[in-house]
């Protein structure tokens, strides 16, 4: 089955951890992830600048490793990212900000990517909505 997975909640929320484990289980079960889409406070899980305590789960780092290792299509909403300070090098330069912090494996793009994924997927599974 084809899954699109969306995350709306921040990295320290239970929803962010559940989304990560769900995504891992999706692949482990032989299914396909057509796209991961981070929106609202979910964009913070694609920041390379969050620091977890040594004995705590580093959700953002795990996401980055997971997306890269499985060569997944990982999209962070650009408008939500800009609003919350998750920038790639191009956006940091465009808005003259001192640093880019988008983690490896992710790309910034628009909400059209969410709709496209929803069209391609059998299931859209959202984590952390209200």
């Amino acid at each position, binding site marked *: 089955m084809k899954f699109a997975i969306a995350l709306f909640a921040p990295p320290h929320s239970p929803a962010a951890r559940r989304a990560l484990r769900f995504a891992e289980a999706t692949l482990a079960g032989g299914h396909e992830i057509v796209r991961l889409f981070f929106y609202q406070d979910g964009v913070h899980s694609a920041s390379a600048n969050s620091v977890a305590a040594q004995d705590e789960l580093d959700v953002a780092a795990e996401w980055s490793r997971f997306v890269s290792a499985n060569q997944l299509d990982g999209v962070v909403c650009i408008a939500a990212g800009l609003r919350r300070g998750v920038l790639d090098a191009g956006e940091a330069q465009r808005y003259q900000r001192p640093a880019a912090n988008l983690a490896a494996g992710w790309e910034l793009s*628009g*909400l059209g990517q*969410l*709709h496209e994924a929803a069209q391609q997927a059998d299931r859209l599974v959202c984590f952390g909505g209200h």
Partner: protein
Amino acid sequence: MARSMLIISRQSPWAGPSAREALDIVLAGGAFELPLGLLFLDDGVFQLVGSQRAASVEQKDLTANLQALPLFGVDALFAARRSLAERNLDESSLALSVEVLDDAGLSALINRYDHVITI
């Protein structure tokens, strides 16, 4: 056939970016002419109150954007009767033309859509 999506907007317009970000999903989908619906539920129905003075809390008023939805091809707009009643809002004086649904209607509505996003 394109898959349909219902966006359920549950936050008031002054409770942070959620109302704006729910609307942005709808507008983005409208641009692709996808079959979309937008349901105002719980505090989301506060978005339907007219004459908001968003500038007094240094925000932008979403009302004009909501009223433009039919121009973007999105005219499946709904509100929950129970949510309106709980907040003492009059169905007949909303700033947007919406179909008001009771609980059974909500259940049927959600079942009609392929995908549901709640924000």
